[in-house]
């Protein structure tokens, strides 16, 4: 039963994110927009490049979708509503999202096109920038919760949400999360302006549909991770647990998609320098501060 509810929640969540993304990119809020473009993509030819690495070209979209869905599977919507409550859930979320990089390298290298290849290797540089800023804040969250299980992490935020408890960690995790979902301004691998679609340039038809579905679920997964780790998941006074989760996730997703378009696209060199020269020292400081607070403030 929970499986069915989770499947429906996943579908609705992904569609909600798709509507937000459609609104952010085309400027018009049309609820039917994503459905129409999905059906249109289904109807278009799916062109196979001439001398591709066929294995890479085929597995990239599927791997992206599988990685996004698995990362969602360890995040709870409500106390009992979780696909797999692993004891190391926070780690599993990060492990699943590491394969987004593998999918994008495959998508970039597979079709043997210049734009895609450059986009793919650029995303590896982007990972080197954001990976540490995802993992270190999660460690600080686990320190407070004394466990890596996502349900425990949400339960530990009973009194005070982590956004208030460790705001620095939240800021770093938010930026790194947007970089992980390559949402603007971090859309280096699929940059419209300088790579004309980059890694997803060569995908048409149904393969492109699966690729974009993977992207939507990825944005949903990053948004729900931010909710679970920092915004107290299902905790909330009046509404039932799942309603709070859904509201927070959609709020975070719309903030990510609409806010991100205010800032010009970042250069990869600048992203790397900012994250290694400023981000990682801040993340280490965040761990240290949280360490002190955890010792001083008895729960």
């Amino acid at each position, binding site marked *: 039963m929970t499986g069915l509810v989770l499947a429906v929640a996943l579908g609705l969540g992904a569609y909600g994110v798709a509507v937000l993304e459609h609104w952010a990119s085309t400027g018009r809020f049309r609820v039917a927009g994503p459905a129409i473009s999905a059906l249109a993509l289904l109807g278009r030819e799916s062109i196979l490049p001439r001398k591709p690495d066929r294995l890479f070209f085929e597995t990239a979209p599927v791997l992206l979708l599988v990685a996004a869905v698995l990362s969602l599977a360890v995040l709870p919507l409500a106390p009992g509503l979780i696909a797999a409550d692993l*004891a190391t859930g926070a780690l599993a979320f990060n492990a699943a999202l590491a394969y987004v990089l593998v999918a994008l390298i495959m998508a970039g290298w597979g079709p043997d096109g210049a734009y895609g290849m450059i986009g793919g290797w650029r995303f590896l540089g982007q990972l080197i920038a954001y990976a540490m800023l995802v993992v270190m804040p999660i460690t600080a969250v686990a320190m407070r919760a004394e466990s*890596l299980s996502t349900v425990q992490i949400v339960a530990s935020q009973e009194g005070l949400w982590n956004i208030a408890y460790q705001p620095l960690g939240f800021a770093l995790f938010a930026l790194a999360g947007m970089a992980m979902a390559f949402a603007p301004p971090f859309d280096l691998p699929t940059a419209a302006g300088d790579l004309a679609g980059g890694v997803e340039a060569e995908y048409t038809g149904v393969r492109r549909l699966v690729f974009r579905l993977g992207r939507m679920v990825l944005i949903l997964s990053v948004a729900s991770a931010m909710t679970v780790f920092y915004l107290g998941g299902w905790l909330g006074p009046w509404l039932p647990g799942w309603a709070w989760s859904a509201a927070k996730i959609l709020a975070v997703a719309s903030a990510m998609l609409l806010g991100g378009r205010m800032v010009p696209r970042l250069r990869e060199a600048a992203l790397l320098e900012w994250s290694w020269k*400023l981000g990682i020292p801040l993340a280490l400081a965040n761990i240290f501060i949280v360490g002190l607070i955890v010792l001083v403030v008895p729960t």
Partner: protein
Amino acid sequence: MSAQLFFLAAFGLAAVWFGIVVFRTHSMVRSALALLFSQTAIGAMFLVMQAEFLGILQIMMMATEMSIMAIFMVMFMMDPGGLGEMDMKHQRKLSLGAGAVAFAGAVAVAFLAEWGRLPASIPGAAEQVRLLGLELLGRSMLIFESAGLTILTAMIAATAVAVQPPQVPDRPAGGPGAAGTHGHGGHGGHGAGGHDHSEHGDHAGQDHAGHDHSGHDHGGHDHAKHAHAKHDHEGRGQEKHQAHSGHEDHGGHEGHGEHGHAAHDQAGKDHGGQAADSDDHAGHDHSGHDHGGHDHDHGKDHGKDHGKDHRKDHGHGAERDRPAPAKAPPGQHRKGHEENGT
């Protein structure tokens, strides 16, 4: 129990199969990602054996690290796309022998070693992480700290091998300095944790550092307009002239004058401060060489004695001169004002 065994065998076979694909494929990226999925299969085996923390850790860390190995293999291996179908297997007999010996050793250890009793009950995943944490802070704190030291040495070694310290000291201040692109980087640094598979890379790096990479003599085809290594214009240093550090060999070719290389400033060439070059001419420090203006003659004379040094050092019959890299233009003081970012 049988389902667990089945999945354990399935993932084991998958790991072995991906391991075989690593060596049978011609494309470098395919072999790197095959190794990646082989590690993932091993991570899945950990999960089947209910060692959740190790399994998830294996799956997570190997994905990023094997991708980094993939980019190093693509950078330093001959034909990364595998288009030339080149046979990459070297020393076939030696490696087959070594493989057989290793396999025999592993099987022997598996069967002969004393593994002790199978534990009655496996602690839960959360409990395992807690126990591991206590272990780190308790009995094996020394190992934990020495691991920190080994990682530190790995970082220092990797940086020393792969990265050439910049002439303009990189601004340690918070804001990122200018994205400068000069200095000569060595080849294929060794990834920490010694799992760098690009033995070609080491070889080339080793080869490169010690071996005089007898720069292919470019004398004949140097085009004024086709200067290969244009100067680095990343930073807006105050130099206004455009210095082409062409691959000009001044040693043996006096006849080059009439080729009409009009504005051919040798400053760039003299800056060939490559690792191989600099260790030969320890005293011959180019970096401080401030050319300021567009001084052609000075460069030319300097070029000559530079050329002569070469002949003395290498004692080769043929005139050898290394192609000048696109060195930082002379006296480039990059003001770090053009950092950019969020």
